[in-house]
């Protein structure tokens, strides 16, 4: 894996998200109440809403456009909705966060 540093965990608010711009589109990086970090495509499978702008609860985010709930762990829509976004591996080394580029390239295909 090729890891690219993107910043520190403290750059993201608790139960919040930031986005990372990449040549292949935006990646949403989340920090949960439990200090876990997840990264998924910043693009809701429903109508492309920016997931990084949603409300973060447990290990999920609610899309700001039409309230789909997306699991941060699997990228899958929860509840009755069906759909999926790509998850992107993210590494937390003493607070320094990096994302893996292989999946970025994949996401671009």
């Amino acid at each position, binding site marked *: 894996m*090729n890891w*690219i*540093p*993107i*910043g520190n965990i403290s*750059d*993201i*608010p*608790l*139960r*919040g998200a*930031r*986005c*990372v*711009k*990449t*040549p*292949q589109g*935006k990646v949403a*990086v989340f920090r*949960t*109440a*439990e200090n876990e970090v997840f990264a998924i495509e910043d693009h809701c*499978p*429903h*109508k*492309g*809403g*920016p997931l990084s*702008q*949603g*409300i*973060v*609860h*447990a290990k999920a985010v*609610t899309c*700001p*456009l*039409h*309230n789909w*709930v997306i699991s941060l762990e699997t990228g899958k*829509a929860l509840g*009755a*909705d*069906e*759909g*999926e976004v790509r998850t992107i591996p993210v590494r937390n080394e003493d607070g320094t966060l990096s*994302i893996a*580029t292989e999946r*970025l*390239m994949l996401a671009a295909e």
Partner: protein
Amino acid sequence: MTEKLVIIGNGMAPGRMLEHLFEQAPHRYAITIFNAEPRVNYDRIMLSPVLSGEKTYEQIVIHGDGWYIDHGITLYKGHKIVAIDRTAKTVTSDHGVTESYDKLVVATGSVPFIIPVPGKDLPGVITYRDLDDVQAMLLAAQSREKAVVIGGGLLGLEAAAGLAERGMDVTVLHVMPTLMERQLDPAAGYLLQKAVEERGIKVICKANTKAIVGDGKVEGIELDNGTIIPATLVVMAVGIRPNVNLAKDAGLAVNRGIVVDSGMQTSDGDIYAVGECAEVGGMIYGLVAPLYEMAGVAASHLAGDSSRAFVHSDTPTKLKVTGIDLYSLGDFAEGDDREEIVLRDATAGVYKRLVLKDNRIIGTVLYGDTADGAWFNDLKKKRTDITEMRDTLIFGQAYQGGSLLDPMAAVAALPDDAEICGCNGICKGKITSTISAKGLTSLDNVRAHTKASASCGSCTGLVEQLISLTLGDAYNPKAVQPMCTCTELGHDDVRRLIKAKGLKTIPAVMQELEWKTSCGCAKCRPALNYYLIADWPDEYADDYQSRFINERVHANIQKDGTYSVVPRMWGGVTNANELRAIADVVDKFEIPLVKVTGGQRIDLLGIEKEALPAVWADLGKAGFISGQAYAKGLRTVKTCVGSDWCRFGTQDSTGLGIRIEKFMWGSWTPAKLKMAVSGCPRNCAEATCKDIGVICVDSGFEIHFAGAAGLDIKGTEVLGLVKTEDEALQHIVALTQMYREQGRYLECIYKWAKRIGLDEIRRQIMHDSEKRTAYYERFVFSQKFAQVDPWSERVSGKDKHEFNPMATVTFGQAAE
């Protein structure tokens, strides 16, 4: 190797077929669907509720885009297949896509029948078949003009009711002497006609359309007898016929429909047909239950089980027009070998008729009271000899066995194999056993797991009775609706407990009130944040992560992820300097759209999130603050020009509006709060459909509230009349504070008022000066903390992280 399955058509039948197929042989086929409609699979039966406004398109989607992705289905939307090449085993679409198949399913459905009269092609003549038709009707209905529906059958009447609901003046033309003559006998047809007419819809039976007239567009309809009925919209709903052209061109055996055997196989062994286009056993079908049966059979055959065969069964007809109950089933024509039992109760509007042959029910027509439909259907299906209960049969199941049963007991007495949901063919035993096996406790869950009442919804009552029967006291549909799935408590209890227990943070609320999730959800968190900020304005630290994005970044998110910005224009008044500043911002930031809003201010749309602080900085220099056009809080106070300019103005409405806005801006409320002040009863500021409005009169200020002009339209109620501007302000502020303290999150003021009672609100605000003063003072206190302009805060650097990406990965980095 995976076989290739190609499906032509993406309606309800092939959708259901795939569901079955994925259960039985999940990975057997690589599937490609060609849909002539540019969308996913939706519940066509529910188009009428979409037309009448009871549902939205999103609510009737059966399979969302994700479902196709999850199952690896290639879905071509808006591709119509124009040719099947059976030798090469390929199909070709009108966009030139050619796909080969091992197995092909033709599900082309049906096409509406168009009566061949002059003028049938005029713009304004439409059919009623798919979502595009509904959208065309909705567009036409905006004119609120006259519409004619040709056809007094199921579809025609549903279309007529929907259009009338949308405000059109509707006439139904029906060629036969009574409505729905194929499903109803003349007596029930007459009752139905009366009920339809009571909705303001005109009905003309025995009406033969001679021509549709109009110059370039529809202007009316001419009947055989020379009568002309003016109309700007004509809906043809005279029937459908199977869409067989494609199959015919491909050389498949076609009669009325595409001929299939009891395994849904056409004359070509590799090609199946399902749905309205298929003809099985000499019959074609238009109701959903037999189509779903076809879907099940075809799925089994595709999965390799060729033992399953299609079996014909009569399907009850129900009309989906709110407030009209009718049910018909089987054969109800008169005949020498038949007897009938009829019950009429004209006052109650009830008509029931059973047609018997050899002491067995062969047909049922119920109007006005359809509760016993399932029972009669069951007797018919089982060919039960009814000699024993003949005397009381027509009164229904409750009257059998001597003592009077309540409706619950009647449901309890149904056998396990009695059909409850006709659309999906779900019987009682399946529902009750699924409830027990999966531990279901709500109607939504039962729908999700069994599909009972999930199609047309008319058996919802029965399903609910089964849930209560199975769960006993554990099911109480009238119980307090919990805030969300994170808690059992309703909004009112949560608000009460926050005050009673002195809970001042979201974690404290969740801990003390035993939330079931670790940190709530997108429903309860914003609600709790509002309750806490309303109840503890000085102590509670606003939790921005619990706010919806618009309130978090103080702008309105748009569908493309950009934002719109609306600066405050007090009372809708502006000047050259402000306009110049806005113009400069528009130029500098290349803002794509500038629009005047309904609330008398200016909206700047299409701004990238990262540019927001800079936009605000420039606007701030001209004196603008946030218009909070995104807030569940005070939005606008619309005004007219009032006594300063208007020759009818009685008071300074503009001045009062500005005063109210300057006093109240920044306050959070349960739902958005829009106001208006009109200078005289001519009401140019449209104050009587606002959350709170003022109508100025010579003798003072008439305060209105609880209006609505959104999804619901409702005129305001009068709170009372006060003499001075000071009093007007005090009463409005006190009313708002009462609403702030009692309203449920996202509950508009009119809904709150309905719940609390108008008299109670008038009593506290108009007649109890002590209460009024206390409300007023609590609002004033809260404003000390609320009136901080969020834009200037952010220009100064607050929440900087919201407006910048965390990092930017370059192509070089990513490619390494």
